[in-house]
């Protein structure tokens, strides 16, 4: 079943990747809704797939930004200390949170991100 989805999935990734590299974000804001609406994944599964797919995308972006000297390693170290711990907590919450709550939370975050893109 999933084989037929390889090309559409790559296309979804491509659009998410553009947002990721361009804006310095993960791209999950694009990936998750695409997986929910186009691939009909439950919200929880979409979040899990998105997070896993984000890692290689961010690596490409980080490589180019670092090449042009646009990474502050000390600040990155501080952020990482918190964020890796947070990621474990977040995933634990994800496995317990109800679908409807996940969906509403995500929609709010998407709306905020959209507003920020329109009014930087």
């Amino acid at each position: 079943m999933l084989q037929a989805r390889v090309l559409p999935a790559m296309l979804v990734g491509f659009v998410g990747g553009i947002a990721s590299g361009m804006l310095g974000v993960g791209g999950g804001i694009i990936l998750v809704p695409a997986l929910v609406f186009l691939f009909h994944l439950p919200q929880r599964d979409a979040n899990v797939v998105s997070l896993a797919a984000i890692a290689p995308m961010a690596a490409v972006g980080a490589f180019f930004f670092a090449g042009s000297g646009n990474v502050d390693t000390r600040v990155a170290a501080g952020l990482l200390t918190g964020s890796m711990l947070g990621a474990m907590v977040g995933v634990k919450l994800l496995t317990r949170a109800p679908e409807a709550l996940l969906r509403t939370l995500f929609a709010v975050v998407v709306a905020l991100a959209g507003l920020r893109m329109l009014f930087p």
Partner: protein
Amino acid sequence: MSAAEIAIAVSLGLLVGTLSGLLGVGGGFIMVPGMVVLLGETQHVAQGTSLMVIIPTAIVGTITSARVRSMPWRLIASVGAGGTLGAGLGVYIALHVSDGTLRRIFGILLLFVAARMLFRPRRQPMGEEI
């Protein structure tokens, strides 16, 4: 970096990581403005640093997930493969091209997505399998 700045960075990271694991996002949309406003980074350095932080955060989140559930690796690999190509193009746009128009397109797209998620909920899925 002062002790206060380290504390700010770690706290910001904790918030971003939790959202990241919970919602499957990188969290850059919070990290980038957070670094610009709270830590005085330039926009480009904030974006580069954000991407750098997202890599291990997403890996840790994914490993945590993989320990408690089965993962649709084929779908993940497809999305990730397309994503790496898109990311290259996105960075090129960020560093060499004016990104105002694309930014507005993404912004409007996201508002539609948010509205649809909030006001037209999909039927509950039959099962959790992928």
